[in-house]
């Protein structure tokens, strides 16, 4: 869903064997929610204020030739509500009657109603309190196991990543910096950006130590040549300023793009 004037200028997005960039708008629409679904960021405003929650689950099924009867769809919507631990009563309510955590769970119910293969959760809990955040994330985690789907969690909160994900990718200024299992990333970070990111996190113990990353993120339309992180990197070398590092696998499953490790 790239809005104009943005467009995908190259590359492929593969879901199984299908290249999503080659699909027509109508085919892509069929893919959305049934195969790839989204858990939105601002759950507070992500539900249509003038529709009941259950109708908002059903209408997306209506538009995806599922061949279900009305009753079966209601059945499925109720199942989705149960899956996110919401009372079935909530299905007949309007969004303004729900609390923040309930709205987020309602959104999750919408996204999982058609058992998609991939669930993209874009900072799904950034507006929620920690306890509610934990409940919501644990709900997503349980559903993921039950349906066997993949969850892509997008976020800036490394704590949430450490608690929730199996594999993670670190991005900086539009490029991949590092990719690996969460153990790899937290115990042996390869990229200096990842290292600094982890060091800047407040942990329990070591009270009062609190580091930042000096400098500011470059503007995406004005990226530095070479490695995009070279303006802030403490280990910057000459090569970093003119040559873009290759994204390579260093140990099995652990990738990074950094000249430091290129021998």
């Amino acid at each position, binding site marked *: 869903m790239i809005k104009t004037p943005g467009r995908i200028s190259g590359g492929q997005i593969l879901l199984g064997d299908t290249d999503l960039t080659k699909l027509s708008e109508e085919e892509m629409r069929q893919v959305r929610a049934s195969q790839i679904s989204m858990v939105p960021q601002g759950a507070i405003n992500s539900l249509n204020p003038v529709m009941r929650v259950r109708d908002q689950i059903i209408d997306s099924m209506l538009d995806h030739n599922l061949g279900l009867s009305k009753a079966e769809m209601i059945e499925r919507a109720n199942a989705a509500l149960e899956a996110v631990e919401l009372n079935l009563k909530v299905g007949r309510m309007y969004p303004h*009657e729900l609390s923040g*955590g309930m709205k987020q769970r309602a959104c999750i119910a919408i996204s999982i109603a058609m058992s998609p293969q991939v669930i993209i959760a874009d900072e799904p809990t950034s507006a929620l309190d920690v306890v509610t955040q934990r409940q919501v994330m644990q709900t997503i985690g349980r559903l993921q196991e039950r349906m066997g789907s993949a969850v892509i969690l997008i976020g800036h*909160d490394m704590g949430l990543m450490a608690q929730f994900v199996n594999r993670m990718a670190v991005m900086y200024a539009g490029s991949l910096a590092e990719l690996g299992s969460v153990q790899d990333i937290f115990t042996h970070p390869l990229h200096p950006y990842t290292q600094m990111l982890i060091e800047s996190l407040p942990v329990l113990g070591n009270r009062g130590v609190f580091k*930042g990353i000096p400098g500011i993120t470059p503007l995406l339309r004005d990226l530095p040549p070479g490695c995009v992180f070279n303006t802030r990197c403490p280990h910057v070398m000459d090569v970093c300023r003119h040559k873009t590092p290759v994204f390579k696998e260093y140990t099995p499953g652990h990738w990074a793009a950094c000249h430091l490790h290129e021998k």
Partner: protein
Amino acid sequence: MSNLLELKNVTKKFKTGTVALDNLSFAIDANAPSIIAVAGESGSGKTTLAMMALGFLDPSEGTVLYKGKVMGKLSGAERVAFRKEVQAVFQDPFAVYNPFYKVDHIFEVAVANFKLANSRTEARKRIEEALVSVGLRPEETLGRFPHQLSGGQRQRLVVARALLLRPQLLVADEPVSMVDASLRATILESLRKLKDDLGVTILYITHDLTTAYHVCDHIIVLYRGAVMEAGDVETVIANPQHPYTQLLIDSIPWPDLTRKWGQQELVAIDDITIKATQKGCKFAGRCPHVMEKCWQSPPPLYEVAGRQVASCYLYEDKPVLPNEELGSLFKGQVKAPTGQMAHG
């Protein structure tokens, strides 16, 4: 006993019926500068507390005292003194600037109204000094409009303004929650310098226990307008006694693979059922240890350890600290944070 600011049995009800603060008492002694965290989730009343300390809200019941005098009955000169001595840093570092003026406006008005300088050059000099000590270059920031500066710069300007005014109490309402993570350290460091160098007591209002843990000396944990637990920040965070604080700390997503979420099972909250008029302990509905008496009347503050109190009947055998003496916890020698804030 000279309390700069004191809240006595303060209750705040809003027209909508929500009770933002329920019979809260505590005092801030300006002679023992410290950073006190007021921590809580949304709806805990922490922002109401901040607004009340700043004199922007009146309590529905109870009194707020400034230097021993009731807030509403200050004389003109006392009012001016209060305005100067109790200052704030807000959450949104953009909205505090009037878009019509350059950022200098917030300094100039303060200088003019509180007569901080005798001449324009002296004023300019003092403003520039304040900017430099929060790590800003005056020539890069003054004379600009707020939208021409980054969020970090804007927030540091607000801190610089506090520095210029040398208040006795600074209310910092979520000062870093809208600032880029990489700049948080700088701002928190400036706050700590305010306390250490100028002796400013800081009320650090936050929902984020991790930053509270790193910058504060003391902490008050609020839940739906009532104190759940309070004490030295180190003790409370490392060894929480109240079930609510335990739940909160257990739910923090620590970036630590060895410390996984959810040691404690969650009691599902059906948010609709919690009523504002509930008697007894506010947390009873979600508490895994809830007892019959928890529903009857709110528990007093039990001294569960040295410099740590919890409002919970689980500690009934411990001595009770009278509500209004909550402020006494925050006086005297404080164990300073061990580490140092640093920049990578």
